[in-house]
C-alpha cells in the first residue's frame, strides 16, 4: 500500500464529530429520558457508533453504484474540496441539500430503532407499556377534543438529541470554512 496520501483528516474530523455528538446526545438522554449519566453516555455511544458504521456501509456501496460523472464529482470534492465542470455540476447543490435531508431523517429513524434494539440486547424490557397505560386515559380524552398526542418520549428525545448534534457539527463546519476563506 502506498502511504503517500492518507485520509487522516477525514478520520480525525469524524472522531471529533463523534465525540461531540456522543457528549451532546448523552446530555439530552440524561435530561429527557431520565437515565443516569453513565447509562446515557453508553447508550449515546452505542447508538452513534452504530449509525456511523451503517453510514459508512451506505457510503461505500453508494460510491460503487454512482454514475461515473457523479463519482468523479465526489472524487473531486474528496481531494480538492471543490466541484469541477461536468454535466452534473449544476445539479450538485440541490443534490447536496436533498442528501443532507435524507441523511438527517435516515439517522433519526436508525437511532430510534437502534435504541430499541439496544434495549432488547441488554435485556431491559421496555417500560413503555406501563407509561402508555398511564397516559392512555389522558390521551383518549385529548383525542376526543381533537388533539392527537403522541406520547413516545423516546423518539422525541432522539429527535432533539440529533438536532443538537447535527447543529453542533454544522457550526464546526461553518467555522472551518470561514477559517479556510481567511
Amino acid at each position: 500500500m502506498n502511504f503517500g496520501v492518507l485520509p487522516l483528516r477525514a478520520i480525525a474530523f469524524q472522531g471529533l464529530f463523534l465525540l461531540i455528538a456522543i457528549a451532546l446526545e448523552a446530555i439530552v438522554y440524561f435530561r429527557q429520558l431520565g437515565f443516569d449519566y453513565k447509562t446515557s453516555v453508553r447508550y449515546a455511544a452505542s447508538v452513534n457508533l452504530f449509525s456511523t458504521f451503517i453510514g459508512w456501509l451506505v457510503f461505500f456501496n453508494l460510491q460503487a453504484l454512482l454514475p461515473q460523472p457523479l463519482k468523479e464529482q465526489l472524487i473531486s470534492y474528496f481531494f480538492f474540496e471543490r466541484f469541477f465542470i461536468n454535466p452534473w455540476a449544476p445539479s450538485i447543490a440541490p443534490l447536496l441539500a436533498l442528501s443532507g435531508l435524507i441523511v438527517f431523517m435516515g439517522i433519526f429513524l436508525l437511532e430510534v430503532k437502534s435504541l430499541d434494539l439496544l434495549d432488547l440486547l441488554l435485556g431491559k424490557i421496555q417500560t413503555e407499556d406501563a407509561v402508555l397505560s398511564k397516559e392512555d386515559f389522558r390521551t383518549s380524552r385529548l383525542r376526543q377534543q381533537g388533539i392527537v398526542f403522541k406520547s413516545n418520549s423516546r423518539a422525541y428525545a432522539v429527535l432533539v438529541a440529533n438536532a443538537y448534534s447535527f447543529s453542533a457539527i454544522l457550526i464546526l463546519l461553518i467555522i472551518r470554512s470561514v477559517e479556510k476563506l481567511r
Partner: protein
Amino acid sequence: MLNSFNQFISLFPPALIPLVLLAIALLFIAPLGLFAFNFLAIKTLYEELRKIFQDIFQLIIPNKWDSAKTLIWLSVFSWAMSLLTESFIQIFIAFCGWLFLIPGIHWLMYEEKKIKEFLTIEKVLIAPWITGALICFFLFATPENLPGIMVVTWPIISAIIAALPKFIKPGPTYKVPDPPVRQDLIIMVLFNLLLSCWLQLSYSTQVWLAEYPSLRADDLTNSSFVVQTQSSETANSQGYDILVQAEAALKESLQGQSWSQVERWLVNFDDRIREFNGQIIQRLPAKAENAYWQIEGRVLAGEYNVQLFAVWKGPSSHNAGYHLAKTCQILQVMPVDIKTTPQTPSPVGSVAPNTQVGTANVSCGAVTKAIKGQPDYGKVN
C-alpha cells in the same frame, strides 16, 4: 612444511591473521605457567556463562507440559521439519506450524504476567489485536503482496477474539454474558467495525488515485479529507508523458522532411493536432481519467515555433483545470555542400541529399510546470 603453512594462512582474510597468530601464541604460552593465572578468570567466565544460559532456558523452556511455550516450540519444530520436505507436504507442515503458532502466542500473552502487564494500556489488554493481526496475516497474506482485505478485516477479527472469552462459562460451556458486560462488548465491537471502515476508506483512496493518477501530482493541501505525507513532486501527472509522446510524434512526422512538406503540414495544423489527440491518448495506459486529457496546439509567430499543450479538464485544485506546455522549434537546415568547406557547422539533424530546399529539424524544450487554467490563445510568449 612452509607450503602447508602458507596454505593455512591464505584461508583467513588478511585482517584475521593477527588474531590467528595471537591464538596460536596463546596456545603455546598457556602451558608455560600462565595457566595458573588464567584458571580463576576461566572459572568466573564459566560461572557467568552458566548463569546466562540458565536464565535463557528458564525463559524459553516450558515449566509444565501444558504451557504456551510448548505450543510455540511445536510450531518451531514444524517449521524446521517443513524445511526438510518439499512441495505440498511442505505447505501442509508449514500450515500446521502456523496453526500452532497463533494459539501459542495468544496463550503466551495471557500466561506470562510480565507480558500481560506490558500489553495493558489503561486497563485494556491489546493482546486480541495482536492475535487478530497474526490471524489476518496468516489468512490473507501472499508472498507477493499484502492485500487490502487483510488490513480491513483485522479489527473485526480482533473484536471477535476479544469478545469470545466473555461467552464462555467455566465448564466449559456457552453462556450469554450479563448486561453490563454486554454493553461494553457492544461498544467495543462497534468501535472496531468503525476502525475497519476507516481502513477501508484509505484503501478506497488508493484505488481512486490509481484510477486518476494526475490527481496525485496536484495540490492536495486544501482538502479536508486527505493529508499528503509524501511531497507530490515525485509524481508526474500523465500530462508529462503525453507531451513527451506528442514530441515524439511531431518529430516522427516532421524530422527530415523537406521544407515544403513541413509547410503543407503546418497549414492543416488543427487537424493534425486532432489526429495526435486520438493516437496518443489511446496509447496511454487505460485509466478512467484519460477522457479528461486533451492535446491542443498552436503555431506561434516566427519560422516556425509550435506550442503543444496537454490540457487537463478534470478535477483539480485550480478553478478551470490546468495545462502543461512544450514549445518546439522547427528549423530549416540547409544541405551541406560537400565540395565547399562548410561555413557554419550543420546542426544535428538529417541531411537530405540533392535538394534545393532545406530540411526540417525539430527541437523541443522541456515540459513546463502546470499552468493554471486553460491555454490562453491570445497570449504570445
